[in-house]
C-alpha cells in the first residue's frame, strides 16, 4: 500500500495567488476504508542560531521558534472506501484566497544555513485506531506573485571595482605587495533571480602569476535573538572564471547562474533578514597556498586578493 502526491508542475513552482493542483495517487492491493482524506498546506520560516556571531549559550539553545506563514487543512474526501488497485484523486487548493488575511507574508522558498523558508503539502488518510494512518509530504516552491512585484524591468546596477595591492585590508605576501597587481571590472549588484550575475573583469597587471579567479556567492542570514541580531555569512557557490595566469588586458566575462532554492529575493523582515554578497577572489600562485589547499576559499589569505560587494536579488516580472 502506497500513497504519493503528484503536483501538476514538474518544477513544483507556484505563486501564492495560484491554485495548487495535483493528484493523490493511492496504490493498494485491497480496498481500504477510511475516516477521510485530508490535505494540509504548511508554510513557515524556520530559524536557528548556530555559529556566526551567536554566543555559546545561544547556539546551545539554537532553535528559535519558527514563524508560521500559512497553515490550511482541507478535507478532500469524507470518510468512505477506496477500491483496490491504483486510485487517483485530483485536488486543487487556493494557497492564498483573495482577500483572505494571512499570518505572514508569503516569503519565497529559501534553503539556507540558519534560515529556511519552506512550503509543504501533506496528505493524510485517517484509518481509525487499528490501522496506521497513511501520509505523504511534498515540498512545493513559492515564488512571489507578479502583482506584488515592482513594475518594469529591474535596472541592472553595475559597480565598477578595482582590486590592487592597496585595496586589500589583510596582509599580503611580500612579493604581491612589492610587485603589485591591478584587476578591474564591473559586476552587477542588483540582479534578477532569473538572470545570471553578470559583469566583466580584466587583469591589467600582475607581477606574480595568477592561479585562479573565482566568484563566490555568499548568503548573509540574520536572526533577531532577543535584543541581538545574530548574523552568519556562508558560502553558497563558487564559480571559477579564470584558470591560470590569464592574458593581461583581455576582458573576461563574469557569468554566474543563480542556484534555485539556495537564493531568494533579499528580505529584511522584522525577526530575520536574508541578504547576499558576491566576492571576487584572485588567488596568486604561491608555494604557501599548496600547503593550505583545503582552507576556506572565502577567508583572506596572504596569497589572495578579494573584493566583496553586496548583492541585492530581486524577483522580476518576466
Amino acid at each position, binding site marked *: 500500500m502506497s500513497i504519493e502526491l503528484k503536483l501538476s508542475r514538474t518544477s513544483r513552482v507556484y505563486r501564492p495567488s495560484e491554485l495548487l493542483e495535483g493528484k493523490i495517487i493511492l496504490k493498494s492491493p485491497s480496498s481500504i476504508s477510511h475516516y477521510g482524506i485530508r490535505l494540509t498546506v504548511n508554510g513557515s520560516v524556520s530559524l536557528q542560531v548556530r555559529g556566526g556571531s551567536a554566543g555559546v549559550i545561544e547556539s546551545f539553545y539554537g532553535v528559535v521558534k519558527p514563524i508560521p506563514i500559512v497553515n490550511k487543512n482541507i478535507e478532500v474526501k469524507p470518510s468512505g472506501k477506496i477500491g483496490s488497485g491504483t486510485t487517483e484523486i485530483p485536488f486543487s487548493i487556493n494557497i492564498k484566497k483573495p482577500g483572505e488575511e494571512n499570518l505572514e507574508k508569503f516569503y519565497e522558498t529559501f534553503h539556507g544555513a540558519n534560515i529556511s523558508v519552506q512550503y509543504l503539502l501533506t496528505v493524510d488518510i485517517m484509518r481509525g485506531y487499528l490501522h496506521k494512518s497513511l501520509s505523504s509530504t511534498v515540498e512545493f516552491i513559492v515564488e512571489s506573485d507578479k502583482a506584488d512585484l515592482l513594475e518594469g524591468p529591474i535596472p541592472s546596477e553595475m559597480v565598477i571595482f578595482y582590486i590592487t595591492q592597496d585595496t586589500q585590508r589583510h596582509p599580503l605576501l611580500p612579493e604581491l605587495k612589492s610587485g603589485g597587481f591591478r584587476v578591474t571590472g564591473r559586476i552587477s549588484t542588483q540582479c534578477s533571480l532569473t538572470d545570471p550575475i553578470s559583469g566583466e573583469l580584466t587583469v591589467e597587471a600582475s607581477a606574480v602569476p595568477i592561479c585562479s579567479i*573565482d566568484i563566490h556567492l555568499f548568503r548573509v542570514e540574520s536572526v533577531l535573538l532577543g535584543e541581538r541580531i545574530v548574523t552568519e555569512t556562508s558560502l553558497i557557490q563558487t564559480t571559477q572564471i579564470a584558470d591560470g595566469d590569464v592574458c593581461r588586458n583581455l576582458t573576461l566575462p563574469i557569468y554566474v547562474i543563480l542556484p534555485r532554492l539556495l537564493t531568494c529575493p533579499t528580505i529584511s523582515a522584522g525577526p530575520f533578514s536574508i541578504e547576499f554578497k558576491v566576492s571576487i577572489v584572485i588567488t596568486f600562485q604561491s608555494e604557501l597556498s599548496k600547503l593550505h589547499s583545503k582552507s576556506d576559499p572565502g577567508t583572506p589569505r596572504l596569497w589572495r586578493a578579494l573584493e566583496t560587494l553586496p548583492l541585492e536579488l530581486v524577483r522580476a516580472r518576466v
Partner: protein
Amino acid sequence: MEFRPRNYSAEEQSHAVTRVRADDHPLSAAPSSALHLQVAVVDHGNSDFFDPLRSSDDDGAVSRDVLLEVDNVSSVGLSSEASMQNSAKEWTSFNRILMQKFPVAKMISVSSMSSAIIKGGKMYEKASTSTHLEELEDPQKVAEDGAKLITRNEYVSRLHELKDEIIRAWRASDRVTTLKLSIKVARLLMDTTVLQFYPTLFVLATDIMDTLGDMVWERIKWKAEFAEDGARIYSLPENFQASDIYSDAKETCYNWFCKIGAIRELLPRIYLELAILPCWRFLTDRPEESFQHMVMMTRGLADPLASAYCRLYMAHCIEKFPTRDKGYLVKCVNDIKNLLSWVVSVKETANGNIIDNKRLLVSLMEPTIEFITKCIFKDVTQKQVGNILVELELGRNEVELFGNFPCVSIVLHHLLKELPIEVVSSSAVEILHVIECSNDYSFDQCLNYRLLGFRLCESKSQTDILNTVADKIIQVVTQYDSLDEYLKVVDAFLDIIFQNQMDNHLSTVLEGISKRACNKGPTEDELGSLQSILVKLLSYYDGLQEILALNHFLEILDVMYGSSRSIVNMHILNMATRTACIDGPTTIQLLFEISQALHDDMDFLNVKDDDNQPAHLISRFVCMVDYGAEIERHLTFLVECRGAFGSITGLKETLIHSSNCLAIKSLKNGSKHLGFVKSCIAFCEVTLPSISVPIRQLNLYLETAEVALLAGLVSHSDGLINSALSCLQGLDLMDGSRMPIDVDGIVSSIRKLCGLLVMVPGNPEQGATYFAKNILSLIDLQSWMKPKVRTKIFCAIVSLTATLSQNKLPYHGKVLGNDHLFFGDSSYSNELTLLAKYVVQNLVDAIQQEPSSAARGSLALEACNCIATSFIASEEISPICTKLLETAKSCLSHNDRYLQSTVKFMDRHWPSSSIAAAV
C-alpha cells in the same frame, strides 16, 4: 631428286604489284572534306550531344543558380542533414589524424588533478616506501609533484570504462551519476602536463561529451514529443521553434544548464555546456546568442593548450548549428592569437603548465588553429571574407583587406592556407607585407613566404602584382644566410618566375643558391629543396643547351649528392634523350659524367633489371649520342662507356648496336675505312661474350656477322657465326628451367641465320654446307627442340639448300657468293642434294612425331609447300608430298583455307603428278 631452278629477278618482276603514281599523300586528308566533317560534328553537338567542357558558359550559370538556391534553403531550414553529416565525418577523420599525429610514450605522467583516472586504474606508485619518507621530510614536495605514472593503454581503457559507466547510469535514469562522471571526464582535460597525450585525451573525452550531449538532446526532445505515459503528443518538425516546446521539456532543459552552470571549475563547465549547446534550441530561437558567451568564457583558460583545444571543441559544437555567422570562430582565432603572443612574451616561469619547450606547445596547438580556420573559410562569400579579415585585425576595412598589422605567424600560416584563392591573388602584395611584419618563433617566417608562393601558383594573377611580389621576395631571400630558408622560399616562387619570364630573377636566384650552397655542402633537407628547384628548372626549359647556358647551374649540380642528385641527373638525361640526337662533345662529355655519377649511385643489387629507370636512361643516352663524322671518337666513346657502365647489362647490347651502326656508317662513306670497321667488329667481338642473356647474344652475334659480311670480312663473319652456333648450343645449359625459352624467337633467329648463310661463301676445306650441318647436329642435341621447331628448322634448311643450288643467288654480299665460287662444281651440288635428301627424310619423320593433330596438319602443309617449291616433281619427291598432304587432310578439316590453297598450288605446279588426283 632435283632442285627446282629459279629465276629470282624474273619472279620478282612477275609478282611485283605494278606501281601507280598517287595524287595525294595518304596521310594528308583532302582539306575540303575535313572541314565539312568538322562542321557536321559541331552541328551534331549542338543538337543532342552534351559536351561538359564546351558548353560550360550557359550551363554553368544555371548550376550556380541552383547552388544559390541550395544555400538559401540550408540557411532558412535550420539544419540540412547532409551538411551536418558531412561535418560529422570531417570531425571523425580530423580526430583520427589528431591521434596519429602525436606519438605517445607508453607511460603517461598524470598529475593529481586527474583523480578519475587514478582511482580507477592501477597505479605504479613511485617506490611507495621512499615516497612515504619523502612525505615526512618534505610534505610540500609530495604535494607538488603528485604526478603518477600510468600506461597509455590503461588510461585509454579507463576512459572507455568511464564512457560505459556514463551510458549505464543514463539508462538506469541515474542522471546525477551521469553528470558527475561527465564532469570527472571533462576535468581530465585540465591536466595538460600529459603533453603529447593531450590530443588523444581530447579526442576520447570529447567523444564522451558528445555522447552526453546527444543523450540530453534526445531526452528533452522526447519530453517535448511524448507525454509521461509514452503517448506521442506532438511531433517536432526538423526546424522547430522554441515556442513548439512544451514547458515541462523546457524546464528540464533549463535545469541542465543550471546544473552545469553550478560547476565550480571553469574548464569542465565550458566543456559540458558546449556538449549540450544544441539544446539551447529548445529554449530560444536565437541559440547563437549563447556562442558569444561561450567564446568569452573560454578566455578565462590561461593554459594555452587547454584553451586552444577547448576552442577546437567549440568550433566543432558550433558546426552543429547551421549558422553562417563566422564571427564567433573569428573571435576564437583572435583569442588564440592573443594567447600565443602572450605566451611568446612571458618569460619562463615556475608555472608547470607553461611548457618548457614552446615549440612542442605550438605544434600541439597547431591542429586546433588549422581546424578552426578551416571552419571559418568553409563556404564563405566574398563579402564575408572581407569582414572576417577586418575582424581578424588584419584588414583596416573591407576594401583594404590587409593593413600592415602583424599576426602570430602560425595563425597567419593557416589563414593563408584557407583564404579563398581570389583574395590571395588580388591582395598578394599586402599579404606579403603582413608576412614581413609577422615574425615569431611559433612558425618559420620563410614557410609563410613559401606558402604564399604556392598559393599564388594555384591561379593566374595579374602580372604587375606578381612582379611586385617577385621583386619583394627576391629582396627578402637575399637577406637570408641560411641555404635552407633560401631554397624553401625560392622553390615556391620558381613557377611564378618562369611563367612570367622573369629571367633576371632567375639568374639572381641561381647565383644566390650557388653562393650559399658552395660554401658549405647542403644538408639532407636542403637537398630535397634543391632537387625540387632543379627539376622545375629542367621541366621549364625545352632544350638542355639553354639550361647548360645558365650561369651557376652546373655549380649547383656539383654540390648535390645522393639520391637527390641521382633524381636530378635522371631528369637531365631524360630531357637530353627526348631530343632527336645528342651531339656536341661538351654536351656528350657532361652527360657522360652525369651518367657516370648516376651509375655509381645506383643500387644494382636491389633493383630489378626491368624497371631500372637510370639504366634505361643511360642506355638511351648512349644510343642517341652522335659524333657526326668523328666516328673514331664515337667508337672511343663506346669503349669508355663499356668501361664506365660495366654493371648495366642492357647497355652492352646498345654498345654493340651502336658499334655496328658506326661500322655501317663508315662503310657507306667508302671502303677506305676498312680498318675502322675492323675495330668496330673487334669491339663487338670483345663485348659480345659478356652478354648474359643467350638469345640476345645470339641475335647480336648474327647482327655483327652480317655487318662483317657486308664489309667483306669473311673470316670474322665465319667466326661470329660459329660463336652464334655455340651460343645456341649453350642455350639449354644456360637457361635450364629458370624461365621458358622464347622458342619462336630462336626459330626465327635460326631462319635468319639460314638467310644469312645464302651469302656466306662456303669454305672448300670445311665443305660448303658446314654451317647447315652444324645446325642439324644442334637440333639432335637439344632436348627442348620439339617436333614443331625441328620441322620449321628443317624447312629452312631445305629452302637454304635449294637456294644455294641456283646458278644465280637472289642476293649477294660484298664478297663473292657461292654461285660464283662453285659454279658448275658437281661435288658442290652433290653435297647440297645429299644434305637436302637427309633433311627431307628427317622432316617427314619429325612431322609424324608432333602430338597435336592440328599442329601436325599445318606443319605437314608447310613442309609440303617448302618441298614443292624447292624441288622438281619426281618419283622420289611426289610420294613425299602426297603423304604430307594426306597427313594434313587427316588432321585438318576439309574447309581449311591453308589446305585448299596448298592443293591448288600443287595442281598448278605439279600438274603432271598424281597428287591432286590422290587428294
